[in-house]
């Protein structure tokens, strides 16, 4: 089932001449983990902001579970089904206590108090932050804050979660925490996950990788398949995973290896087999 559908979407920020999205067609299927990769200014954040009607297309349309995001009457329906997590964890936490922050979205939706309590506990459990329930958010690490932000979105019980560069401001430890949480949401809870990033290593675990450049989708497919197009990726100013790079360089030296091994172990095995 298609949960998010972009149909020939064009978008220009007010007061700008340059189009940020130039005719994007994209369909996202339920339960998949989709990574969107692109360098700064490629339009990937703009794409994300169209998924829960923060921005609406200048031309074309976006459907979220069949609802047009431009339909203001159904704005809450769209936002309730698509949870957004942003880059800066500090600027999306609204309360002085972790559990109060997680309760914010269901409170806005008018959920009954006992039900909110249940959802908050469950959401914090899912992201592994239950023991920090009573903590002040500003005393947590970046990765922990971002997990609280994810819990805050989960308490809304969305079907889709869109993360707009959630790891850009985090240290390596925090990045791992966030990515493993997000992967688990998709694999164990069956949620649809859209991860916007410029770290190619965060895309390896995704089901599908969409590469954006200058407001257009330039590649779309399984991560291994997309990364194997090394020339294209480099032309777009993106690096490929070190494993792909190694296999590519070896191929240039005359070894005919497939470029599809992204994991380090799989890559090592492939090379070992070849040179044996």
């Amino acid at each position: 089932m298609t949960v998010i559908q972009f149909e020939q979407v064009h978008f220009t920020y007010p007061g700008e001449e340059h189009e940020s999205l130039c005719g994007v067609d994209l369909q996202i299927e339920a339960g998949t983990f989709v990574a969107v990769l692109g360098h700064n200014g490629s339009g990937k954040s703009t794409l994300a902001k169209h998924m829960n009607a923060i921005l609406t297309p200048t031309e074309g349309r976006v459907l979220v579970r069949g609802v047009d995001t431009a339909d203001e009457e159904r704005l809450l329906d769209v936002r309730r089904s698509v949870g957004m997590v942003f880059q800066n964890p500090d600027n999306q936490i609204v309360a002085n206590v972790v559990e109060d922050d997680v309760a914010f979205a269901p409170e806005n939706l008018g959920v009954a108090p006992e039900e909110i309590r249940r959802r908050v506990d469950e959401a914090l459990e899912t992201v592994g932050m239950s023991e920090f329930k009573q903590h002040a958010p500003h005393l947590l690490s970046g990765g922990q804050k971002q997990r609280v932000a994810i819990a805050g979105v989960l308490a809304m019980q969305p079907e889709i979660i869109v993360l707009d560069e959630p790891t850009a401001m985090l240290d390596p430890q925090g990045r791992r925490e966030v990515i493993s949480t997000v992967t688990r949401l998709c694999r164990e809870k069956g949620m649809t996950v859209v991860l916007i990033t410029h770290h190619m290593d965060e895309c390896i675990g995704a089901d599908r990788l969409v590469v954006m450049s200058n407001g257009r989708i330039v590649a779309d497919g399984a991560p291994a398949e997309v990364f194997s197009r090394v020339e294209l990726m480099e032309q777009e100013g993106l690096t490929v995973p070190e494993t792909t790079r190694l296999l590519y360089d070896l191929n240039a030296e005359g070894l005919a290896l497939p470029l599809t091994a992204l994991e380090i172990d799989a890559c090592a095995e492939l090379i070992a087999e070849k040179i044996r």
Partner: protein
Amino acid sequence: MLKDITLGQFFPGDTLVHRLDARTKLIWLLLYIVALFQAKSWWSYGLVIAVTVLCMAVSRISPKNIFKGLKPMLFIIVLTGLLNIFYTTGTPILPGWIVTWEGIGRAVAMILRITLLIAGTFLLTYTTSPIALTDGLEKLLTPLKKLHVPVHEMTIMMSMALRFIPTLIEETDKIMSAQKARGADFETGRLIDRARALLPILVPLFVSAFRRADELAVAMESRCYHGGEGRTRMKQMKLQSIDYLALIFGLVFLAAVIVLRHFGL
């Protein structure tokens, strides 16, 4: 230096005072302030002091913390005292002196009044979490919604401001360090020089505060925030029997002060 800001500071605890509903404590503060301004004689001041000390003891807030909060107000307190000493007419303490017995009496009374006023307010903020406080305020002011007073908007702004105080303090520290690393001097020089040195801190701080506000607004909307209408709360506020007891105690206290005043004591 910035760490000393006590605004909105809260000392978590599990005393009787901590457990009281925020609304009870807000009403209590109101009763306390009225009582304080009704106090005229030393007897009534004694009563107010006794009640304040009792509250401090029950809530286990040390006087040290109260005095720390008083420090920034010291100038105003001393000034009020001095003005009252020198500008009250009556019997001079020594023939020909400007200082009168009445003046000293009034100065002491004024100083007591301000100190107790601040101490009472601090007892409230020290024992009540900012969220509970703003929630309590919203509940208490609900009747004003009928008069189209934006009560929900005001209280949500208050709680957002409280939420961002630590974040902005952290940021100010960061900017100051960055400026110091490039040779800025905040500690020496005349007052005007030091004030001027603050400008390079304020500009980036304001720019970032606006950016934060913008991002926060988008994040709130993404989480379905659409004003106070139809909003529920996870933590329901319920008045317990101790709240009613505390309120009765507060009313008795106020009545006692008024009675003392009536009898000219």
